[in-house]
């Protein structure tokens, strides 16, 4: 009896406490918290009443009733589902005490005889209870660990999610940045391309400017011949008429021969002027980009004269010896004449500039000389431009074909001449351009073009 009384009080107290702890830990729902607390307090109060009051043992039925309600509630209400193991643990004990009390009330004699068995059954029930409670505790701990793990997992997942979001944000940001940079670079590139076109045009115009004086001089000479021979022919015609009138036919025939000779000279010089003007137009015109059969020798000859007279017109004291050695076997090879002409012009102008520069610091014994040699060599045509100027320094040698590199004083060179020549020869014509030089002595540019003939 005493066992059942205090036992059930403790069991209810223990269940209420366990439920309260469980709810507190895992459920945000606080609705049962207070009620369970009251139940615990009620247990304490009731237990002390039972112990102190003389009719205390009568309360045993109240305990049984409470216990029955508690067990029923805990087995049926879904909220108490996690505590079911505990209910199973206490259930045999609860039933046993109830049965014992009923028997004591209904058949005290029988109860007395079976006291020993009850003791054994009690031992089993309590052992069962203790075992299950311990197991439940272990299970709870394992569960708790599991939950902890899940929580950690969740936390980590949340962290990862946050990180992923951050990364995505950064990616979007960077993408925007890169896109902007790309647009800026594209714009810059377009501007640079426009600037390059402009610069190439300026360079062309600058070299045309250099040429103008040379061209004027070159045209003047043939024009003088055309005028002079025409005048002479008029005089000769007068003479021929008078010779015919006086019957000197032989004389007249001689004069006619001279007239014819002069006529062909007029045609020759007229064509010469024509060729120069055409060359000038070709130079100023945008390159046709078309390869056509071109006489490399006459192109070189024409441009070296233009270059020479161009410099001569700018610098009155300038003079140089021009030596040309042309290989007549070359014939007409397929090149873009305007482009190759420009490349030649740059090489010649540089050569003349170099000898003029050296002349300034040299005495009478120095003879400025620019030599052009053409040569047919297997399937190639080699054009050598040699000058006995100051040569190219080791330091400058690496850079001479770079755009904007110039050794001329500021404002005198665009620095594009050689780089354009290089481009024309290597990219435009699949050719080669090489340099030999000794500082203070000479510079030699060797252009090699493939000898392609028109079929």
């Amino acid at each position, binding site marked *: 009896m005493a066992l059942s009384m205090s036992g059930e009080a403790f069991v209810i107290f223990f269940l209420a406490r366990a439920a309260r702890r469980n709810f507190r830990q895992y459920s945000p729902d606080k609705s049962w918290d207070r009620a369970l607390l009251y139940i615990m307090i009620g247990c304490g109060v009731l237990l002390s009443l039972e112990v102190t009051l003389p009719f205390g043992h009568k309360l045993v039925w109240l305990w049984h009733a409470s216990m029955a309600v508690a067990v029923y509630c805990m087995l049926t209400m879904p909220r108490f589902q996690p505590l079911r193991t505990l209910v199973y643990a206490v259930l045999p004990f609860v039933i046993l005490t109830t049965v014992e009390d009923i028997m004591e009330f209904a058949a005290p004699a029988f109860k007395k005889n079976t006291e020993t068995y009850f003791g054994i059954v009690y031992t089993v029930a309590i052992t069962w209870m203790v075992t299950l409670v311990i197991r439940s505790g272990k299970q709870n701990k394992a569960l708790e660990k599991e939950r902890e793990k899940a929580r950690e997992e969740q936390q980590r997942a949340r962290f990862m999610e946050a990180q992923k979001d951050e990364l995505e944000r950064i990616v979007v940001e960077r993408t925007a940045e890169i896109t902007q940079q790309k647009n800026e670079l594209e714009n810059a590139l377009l501007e640079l391309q426009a600037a390059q076109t402009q610069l190439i045009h300026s360079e062309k115009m600058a070299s045309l400017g250099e040429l103008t004086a040379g061209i004027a*001089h070159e045209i003047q*000479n043939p024009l003088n011949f055309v005028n002079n021979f025409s005048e002479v022919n008029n005089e000769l015609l007068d003479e021929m008429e008078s010779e015919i009138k006086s019957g000197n036919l032989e004389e007249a025939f001689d004069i006619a021969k001279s007239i014819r000779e*002069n006529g062909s*000279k007029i045609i020759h010089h007229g064509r010469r002027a024509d060729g120069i003007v055409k060359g000038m137009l070709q130079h100023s015109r945008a390159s046709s980009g078309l390869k056509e059969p071109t006489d490399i020798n006459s192109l070189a000859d024409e441009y070296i004269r233009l270059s020479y007279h161009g410099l001569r017109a700018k610098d009155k004291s300038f003079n140089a010896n021009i030596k040309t050695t042309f290989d007549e076997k070359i014939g007409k090879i397929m090149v873009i004449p305007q482009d190759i002409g420009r490349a030649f012009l740059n090489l010649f102008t540089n050569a003349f500039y170099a000898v003029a520069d050296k002349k300034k610091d040299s005495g009478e014994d120095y003879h400025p000389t620019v030599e052009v040699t053409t040569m047919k060599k297997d399937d190639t045509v080699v054009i050598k431009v040699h000058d006995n100027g100051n040569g190219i320094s080791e330091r400058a040698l690496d850079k001479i074909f770079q755009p904007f590199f110039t050794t001329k004083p500021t404002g005198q060179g665009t620095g594009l001449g050689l780089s354009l020549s290089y481009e024309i020869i290597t990219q435009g014509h699949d050719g080669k351009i090489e340099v030999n030089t000794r500082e203070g002595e000479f510079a030699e540019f060797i252009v090699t073009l493939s000898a392609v003939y028109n079929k």
Partner: protein
Amino acid sequence: MNVLVVDDEKDMETLFQQRFRKEIRDNKIQFFFANSGEEALFYLEKHNHEAVLILSDINMPGISGLQLLQTIKKRYENPPPIVMMITAYGDDENYKQAMSLGADDFLTKPIDFSILREKLNAKING
């Protein structure tokens, strides 16, 4: 009178021969031609005893007309040959330089042959 014409344009020879055909026919002037300064000096070395009037272009490859003038005036003092300069660049600079080097006359291209004829005739008669 012997006249040496120095010019890198080869057709100058034909032109002078036609322009001065009367003078040549009448044996008043005999023309010699050199295509460069070097050739001119070579000619002068061979014929330095002959009285010579030299007509030289200034702008030529190799030895320029001005260098030729300087050399001639230095080398042939007795009697100094008459040197007339002819150039397409009739600028002050060229003129002053030619005169300071002792040029006897300075003509610009295109050559006015009637003026040249007068000048040559004046030399022959004077």
